Every structure is written in C-alpha cells, then in structure tokens.
C-alpha cells in the first residue's frame, strides 16, 4: 500500500467520522437549542444533558426495517439517500480547516464544493420521484425550484469574493484575509464596498440551499406530511437527516472561509483550527436560532425573495466590484 493511498483512506475516514459526529450532535444541539428558546429542557433523560440521545437514536434507526413502498422506483428510491449523504462527505475533502489541516487542497476548491452541493437537489428529486407519492413529488418540485433559484445569488456572491481575492483556492482565499479581523471579507473594502450585504445574501442562500427553516419547503410537515422523505424510514431517513446536518457544516465552513477569514484569529493571536471551529459553530448556532424564530415562508415568498431581491442586489454588487477592481 503506497503512502498516498493510505493518506486518502485516513482522510476519508476522518471526513466521514467528522461528518457523522457533527450530524449526530448537531441534532442534539438543535433539539436542546429549540427547547431553550421554547423554555423547555429538551432531551435530558439519556445521559448527562441528554448527551446519549444521538447514539440511541442512531441505534433505533438502524434496527428498523427498510421499507420500499409498492410501485416505487426501487433504484432511485435506494440511491437517493446515499446521494444526499455522499456529496456532503466528499465536500469535506476540499475544506481547509487550518493551514496544515486539509485532506486534499484543490486549486478549484470553490468550484468543487458548489459542484457537490448542486448534487443535493438531485437527491431530493430522486427521492420525491422514486417514492411514488404525491406529497413527495410536490415537495421535490418545490425543493428543486428553490435550490436552483438560490444557487444563482450564492454563486454570484462567491464570484464577487473570488474576484477580489483572485483565486478559487479555498486556502488562498482564507490566507488572503489573515492578520486581524479588519482584513476579513465581511467588512467593506475599497474594491468591494458592499461586502456586508454579500455576506448576508450568502448566508440566506446557504440557509435555503440546505433546506433549513424558514426555507424548508421541501419537507413542510404541515402541508406535505414529511415532504420528499415521507416514504423513508429506518436508515434511509437517517441518511437524509445526516446529509442535512453535514450540509449545514459545509455551508458554515464555506461562509467562514469566504467571509470570516477562515482560521484567522480576529486579534492576530494563536491562529489555528480552533478559530475555524469556533466560527463555524457560531454560524451553526445562528442557523438553529433562525430556524426556531421564523415561521416557514410560502413558495411564492421564497422565489420572490431570490429573483426580485437577492439576484438583482448580488448582480449589482458583482458589477460594482468588477468596476472598482479596474479603478483601484
């Protein structure tokens, strides 16, 4: 076994372990956070602070029978949950956690992550179509139109950042922001005075891309039973669930790298992986906070927000940045 192959295996194992651990314990954090906001204690029976709840939930899901509804498209039905989880894990490979910690640094890291992220919509489409269930089809139509329309402003804001940095390499983008918080992309610079707005647009888009409330129209329980995963039980559902949380971690990591300086310390002290983790978990806490604050939007409100507000503003921002880059 050559050393590079060993490296790849170790990297993949770490990526899977990190994704699975995050998925499991973010569910716990989500439930505890939601409970605190609603002034209840949340899961607190199994273990201290309910910390044994996620592994027990996992055991419960794994011991259940995998049911395939009659008339379902078996291949699509089985492929969809795997497709929801696999791209999320693959995206971890390119994310640099700090200067030295990256499974495989690619020059086109931004592109790779967006390419994998767009596969998530395919998993939802397959799940909805393969289930042979009206609710699932309606949910997947909604989710796909949502994912397509939010990918546009997300990519445009990412392009704005890439233009100011001059690189698609996630490591380079992060390094370019090092040396104190005033270098971070979130703050307005001479070349790009509308950066805070780009950050907000990117954040909203990453909420929508991960199908999180208030944009969780793909699973709108009150209207569509459970949306695209209505027919899934057992670990099929478990994979969708884990995929959602893994995608949240990737969304937060990408936001951190593009706008919040990656592993850079705000005061120039002790740069390292802990700053990166602190930033992504703060962003994830905000995700959870938003989910338990706002009610679900309508599909019209959702698409109007993207096409009438986010896309024009991000396009204007792109043109402004392009022009100012020529000037300065």
């Amino acid at each position, binding site marked *: 076994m050559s050393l590079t192959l060993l490296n790849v295996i170790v990297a993949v194992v770490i990526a899977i372990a990190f994704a699975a651990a995050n998925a499991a314990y973010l569910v716990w954090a989500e439930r505890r*956070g939601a*409970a*605190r*906001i*609603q*002034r*209840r*204690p949340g899961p607190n029976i199994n273990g201290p602070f309910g910390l044994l709840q996620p592994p027990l939930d996992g055991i419960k899901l794994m011991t259940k029978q995998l049911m395939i509804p009659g008339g379902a498209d078996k291949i699509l039905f089985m492929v969809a949950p795997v497709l929801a989880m696999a791209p999320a894990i693959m995206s971890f490979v390119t994310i640099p956690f700090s200067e030295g910690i990256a499974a495989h640094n690619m020059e086109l890291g931004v592109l790779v992550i967006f390419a994998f992220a767009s596969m998530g919509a395919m998993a939802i489409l397959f799940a909805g179509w393969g289930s042979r269930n009206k609710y699932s089809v309606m949910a997947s139509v909604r989710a796909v139109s949502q994912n397509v329309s939010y990918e546009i402003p997300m990519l445009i804001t990412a392009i704005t950042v890439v233009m100011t940095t001059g690189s698609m390499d996630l490591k380079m983008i992060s390094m370019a922001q090092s040396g104190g918080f005033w270098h971070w992309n979130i703050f307005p610079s001479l070349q790009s005075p509308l950066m805070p707005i780009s950050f907000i647009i990117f954040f909203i888009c990453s909420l929508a891309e991960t199908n999180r409330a208030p944009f969780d129209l793909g699973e709108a329980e009150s209207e569509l039973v459970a949306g695209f995963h209505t027919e899934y039980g057992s670990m099929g559902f478990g994979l969708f669930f884990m995929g959602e949380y893994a995608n949240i971690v990737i969304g937060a990591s990408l936001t951190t790298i593009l706008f919040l300086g990656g592993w850079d310390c705000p005061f120039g002290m002790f740069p390292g992986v802990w700053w990166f983790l602190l930033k992504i978990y703060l962003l994830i806490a905000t995700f959870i*906070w*938003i989910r*338990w*604050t*706002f009610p679900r939007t309508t599909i019209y409100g959702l698409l109007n927000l993207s096409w009438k*507000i986010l896309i024009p503003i991000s396009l204007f921002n792109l043109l402004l940045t392009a022009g100012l880059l020529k000037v300065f």
Partner: protein
Amino acid sequence: MGGYFSDIFYGSKSLLIGMSITFREFFKPTVTVQYPYQTLKMSARFRGHIELIADEDGKPKCVACGMCQRACPSGCISLESVSVDIEVDGKVKKKKVLSKYDLDFTKCSLCGQCVENCNFGALEFSKEYNLASTRKEDFHFNLLKRLEERNA
C-alpha cells in the same frame, strides 16, 4: 421603487426584532414540569373521582343515607349498610353503618351531584389525576378500602 427598498428595510428590521425576542427567551429559565418526576399540585376546585371523608376515629363520616346514590345521574355509586347495635348513654341503639361503597368510575361524568347532595359532608373530590389503565376493572373503586389505606 421606494416601496421596494422600504420593504427590504422594514422586513429585515422585523426579522431582527423576532431574533432578539428568541435570544432573550433562550436565557430565561424553563417553565415545564418534568412530568413523571414532578407532578403539579392540583387546584382546590379540581374534580377527580370521589373519596370518602373520615371522622376523628378514622371511620367514614357517611351515615349510609343513600342520597348520593339517588342523585347520581349515571348510576355509578352503589352502597350497602348493615345495622349495628351500639350503646349510647346506657341505652342500646341501632345504627346503620356503611359496609360497602363502590364507585364505577367508567360511568362517572364527574358532575359532582353526589358531593353536592351529601348532607353530612362525607364526600370529597380526590386530587388524583394519574388514572390510566388498560383494564376496565381498575376503575371499579372500593372507596371503603381506599379510606382504610389512606388511614394506614
């Protein structure tokens, strides 16, 4: 065009207000009761099933007049009595003593007519609300036995 930007502005502002409310709620103490471990104290006017009241000697205050049985619209109370000779001031008197008091709680509508009609203040509502069972027989209460258990 003016409406467009003011919509964005006031929309974002209202979102921030909502988020500040949930942020404040996050740090407030919880208000729920951890049910199997903690239970609520029922209010004074809570109506559970009926219960006999004991006198100073621990005997039921009930004189077995049967008013409750007659008042009950659902017919869920059945009581029996025996006459016992007791000595009062050197004379032997006959007195009715309650020997059986059964409540069929499956039929009871908790109207409270029995408590209302009792002239001797011998009935009360219990504060028991953990009444769940899979068997019908569990709701046929022997109130005399329950009184003895409470006295013990």
